[in-house]
């Protein structure tokens, strides 16, 4: 059983609750993954700015600032 809560609702015939919870779980997972991925470049940038990684990891585009 990979999703115990959704499974429990499903076992009791509450299909709508199962779907509701599954959608919520997917949203939460993707949020959490995005929140993990998004700061990573900035962390690398900060480390590079502190001199602990190579400077080229800390460069920012001059033209677009992106």
């Amino acid at each position, binding site marked *: 059983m990979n999703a115990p809560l959704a499974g429990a609702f499903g076992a009791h015939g509450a299909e709508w609750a199962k779907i509701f919870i599954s959608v919520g779980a997917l949203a939460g997972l993707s949020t*959490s*993954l995005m929140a*993990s*991925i998004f*700061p*990573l*470049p*900035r*962390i*690398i*940038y*900060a*480390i*590079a*700015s*502190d*001199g*602990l*990684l*190579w400077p*080229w*990891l*800390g*460069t*920012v*585009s001059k033209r677009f*600032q*992106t």
Partner: protein
Amino acid sequence: MALAGNSEQTLPNVSATATATAHCHVPSIVHPLYACCSPVNATLVSGLLAGIMAFLLSIDELADMMSIGTLMSYTMVGACVIILRYEVPNANASHHLLEEEGEEGEGGLKVGDLGAVDAMGGIDAATGIIRGARGVFAETPPALHRFGQTSHDGDSAARSRTMSAGGAGGGVGRHLDSNYNTAVTPVGSVPEARGERVLAAAGTSKGPGKTHGDYAALDDGMEEEEHELRTHSSTSDSAAKRTATGGSGTVSTGSTGASRVDSLRASPSDGSLNAGPTEGAVMLATAHTPDTVTAAAARELASERSVLLAGGTAEKAVHINASWWEAFVAAQTFKAEHTNRFRAVVANVLLYTFFTVVVAVGINVGVAEGSLWGYIVVGVFGAGAAWQMVVMANVPEVPQPQLKFKCPWVPLLPMTSMGVNVYLLASLSVYTWIRFAIWTVIGFAIYFWYGVHNSRASAHAAKMEAEQAAKA
């Protein structure tokens, strides 16, 4: 993707440390016009790595990588919470004090990056200060009252605050640096130099002869120390300076006589100490110390006082320079009060971690196979780990008056957390550990072959050292 998550779990510690020591060298991460700015190469590299990992590994393996990173970092957080709680407060406290002081228009100079100093030397020396100052505070509250009441020239009031500020930790020492630039030691300097500087704070707080009368009000039980104080308070400022810098004789910090110059190994070569302005700095600094902080320090000290008075005797000498082994043994025999508590705690945390690792592996391997040896090992080392919790719970607290919030149940809660984390770590698969080991080796390789030589913190330390050399 999970790599990203894993890195996210482990890397912030590095970067947080780095930025903390580098003291926010990157103020303009956000572009003023576009209010956005993302590092291109870092984005490409992290995205590429995450993509490759997601392509090559299954979701379960990646999830395990996240787990191992999370558990590992939280185990370390637990250990750090314990260790930092027994460290003598230094950099943060003085930063805080200085900021508030600056608002009052006093002492425009800031401590700067002294937070990057390796704290060990400061701990050794400053522990003595704390103990010493607390001795005065605990044993002679009437004298302190007199400090406040007589205040014929305001000096005594400042002096009594010096006591409590001394109890608060190395803050006084930092004030010396910031206000008068006396006894500035280079970042990352040797412990001796740090000890010397803190010693100057303690020594000068009783340097001039006019404090003699105040100190004569010490309790009867403190005769010995009083004698020492008498000796020192009869010295002139310049004499105090010589004593502090020369590293000769027995300057006692506060009243315990615990921390002696020779035990601190003050190096005579550092001539930058100057007792005269130093004392002024102490008084300036402490006179403008926010009352909230000193009040907190006083509360801490008062709570310790009951313990001391219950003991019935004046404090014994504290062996600040106790070796790791001595400190460890002292903690194991419930005598940590009279030793270097920081070392005792670090040694105990390491031993506890070792025990929990053995227990966790024993449960996951031996007990899982149902072997008798598994049960024996788990029983013995589990008892050892439990014993370490008892030992740790009996190490007296080091006052941390600068903390606004303190995690409750500190030795026990983080230790429990560490134990559970270690158990969960041990239940991860061997392959996860191999992957983790590979990534760790890569990380260490980058750090030791590149980062450690090129970090801003080390460059800054080198600069400070050069400046110090030029000054001397």
